[in-house]
């Protein structure tokens, strides 16, 4: 942890007359949530280690508007989108990578018709592409032989049909990937999407994250892997409530930890 992270901002790069290859869109959760910040750092360590030419928006980044849009506030969403697009276009951003499937979905699918067209990748897709290009090597490290189950984030899986990239990365850890009874297109939501993260659930018989955590624990996995900061929170809470100690880790954390970064 003593290692200093190299995180240039777009503004700094521009001042030096440079244009980074990719913009790392950190997202609100990755910027502010204590648990998610660890994911952000893990991902940056991988980027630094692989000498990826990237930058962040830093204080110029703002919410994509996803939770507002899903809550029904199209005004607020479009205000956010147009302000973000103005910033992104001013920096002539071409390619965006983000560790949040909600930001990923919004930037990729809902910004283009508002004049914001970029190549947008989820960090698991990006890491997979680095791996394929030989820019990243993944070794099992501490995860060798461990049983890992992967929870499909709705906004990565069903919403955008990305199912294989995170699984390919887990398999590269020499770990045993075990599937939950509901996975891929049948994956069961963690309960956070559609702005649910920011409100109490409606009256029911059970919380959705508990139902999903039970799916995960049923696999007897030693680690629950996630690819979304919100899913991570929901499942971490679920594991706690179930009085279990199975760690919930993001794919980026798994890779960074395996490499001892």
């Amino acid at each position, binding site marked *: 942890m003593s290692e200093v992270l190299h995180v240039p901002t777009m503004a700094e790069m521009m001042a030096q007359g440079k244009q980074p290859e990719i913009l790392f869109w950190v997202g609100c959760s990755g*910027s502010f949530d204590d648990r998610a910040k660890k994911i952000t750092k893990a991902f940056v360590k991988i980027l630094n280690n692989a000498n990826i030419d990237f930058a962040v928006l830093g204080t110029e980044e703002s919410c994509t508007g996803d*939770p507002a849009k899903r809550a029904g*506030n199209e005004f607020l969403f479009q*205000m956010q989108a147009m302000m973000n697009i103005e910033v992104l276009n001013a920096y002539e951003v071409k390619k965006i990578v983000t560790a949040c499937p909600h930001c990923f979905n919004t930037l990729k*699918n809902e910004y283009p018709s508002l004049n914001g067209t970029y190549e947008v990748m989820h960090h698991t897709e990006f890491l997979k592409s680095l791996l394929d290009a030989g820019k990243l090597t993944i070794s099992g490290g501490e995860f060798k032989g461990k049983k890992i189950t992967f929870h499909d984030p709705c906004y990565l899986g069903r919403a955008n049909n990305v199912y294989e990239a995170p699984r390919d990365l887990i398999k590269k850890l020499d770990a045993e990937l075990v599937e939950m009874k509901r996975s891929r297109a*049948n994956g069961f939501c963690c309960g956070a999407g559609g702005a649910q993260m920011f409100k109490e659930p409606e009256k029911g018989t059970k919380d959705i994250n508990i139902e999903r955590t039970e799916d995960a624990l049923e696999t007897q996995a030693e680690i629950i892997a996630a690819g979304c900061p919100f899913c991570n929170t929901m499942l971490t809470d679920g594991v706690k409530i179930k009085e279990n100690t199975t760690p919930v880790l993001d794919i980026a954390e798994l890779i960074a930890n395996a490499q001892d970064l």
Partner: protein
Amino acid sequence: MNLLAQLFFAVLLIIGFGFFTINVKKLIRNIKLGKPVDRADNASARWNNMFMVALGQSKMVKRPLAAFLHIIVYVGFIIINIELLEIIIDGLFGTHRIFAGLGLLYNILIGSFEILALLVLIAVVLFWMRRNVLKINRLSNPDLEGDPKKDANTILYFEMVLMTLFLVMNAADFWLQQAGVSHYIQAGSFPVSHFISPVFNGMDENAVHMIERACWWLHIIGILGFMNYLYYSKHLHILLAFPNTYYADLNVKGKLDNLESVTNEVKLMLDPNADPYAAPPADAVPSKFGASDVHDLNWVQLLNAYTCTECGRCTSSCPANATGKKLSPRKIMMSTRDRLEEVGKNIDANNGVFVPDNKSLLNDYITPEELWACTSCNACVEECPVNISPLSIIIDMRRYLVMEQSAAPQSLNAMMTNIENNAAPWQYNQMDRLNWKSE
């Protein structure tokens, strides 16, 4: 067959198809109450969807047993209807088994109709048992209490009776052929009904003839009746699955539409040169944001509602429903159709004009509690075998609640205020966004 019977048959056909046409027109009128949405693009992808999803039933196979039984009924329905052509010609012209001249091909056709009819009968009985004896959760949950349950069983009884009539008719025909009764030419093969025909042994020729005729008439009357029952039942999917899959949203499921009316206003708000006091252009229709009633939904959403066959796969995969929340995506579709029907009847009763009835889809049919329970996870959209999107209706109704009524739950209002004030859903300062770097 005498002339009177032929005339009666013709009148029957005219009434049957005439009434059906009236209802189809009503159906189209009701669907057109929806707002316009452009789904004319990318015809090849749309045909492909229709071919794979509706005709090929590619999404049914997720639940193999139901898919297997359903494909039998589906293929049976299509193939056996070839027989309908012969029935109509025979009925109008007083002929009997007009296609018998096809010889071997005719035998093969009639033989395969019979086998399919038996399989359909078995499948339908199993369907009935899944619904009424095994009480499969999605087929017996509270969404279906009352009329929907009766409707589902009525359809099954209809099919049972039609298949039975068809087989008994053939059995009697076969018996009469064997007895050498004139008019009953030796034609067709009867792999199933020849097992039934011995029950007529010892009966009077005329009695068997009466039975054959009765089954023939009841069969065609039943088919016409079933066709006309469609509009009043959940069974419209046998027709509407095709346009529904054709016009379904082709975008990835995660993509929601961006409301154009909002875009215009937001652009104006962000434009430093805009005059905030300028009068709106004269042709600007005051638009309503989101949907509180069926008129506010688009026509594809209304087509979705008529297409829904209430199979409940959406609801059985819904995380909110699975954890005891009020939301049921199937009920969203059923409520939308119920309200649309009510609006349609209102228009019929008032000379083609809708007279406000102090009711709306929101509150009277769908409560905010249901809408706010949705996680927008798209499980319902993924599940639907005919590409219906309950989620799009939920989002449009949330839009109305938030943008027209400011009626979001308090915690969501706080979230939105945060985004407005400090560009994040939580109360953190935008200037602290990069603090993680050095923490």
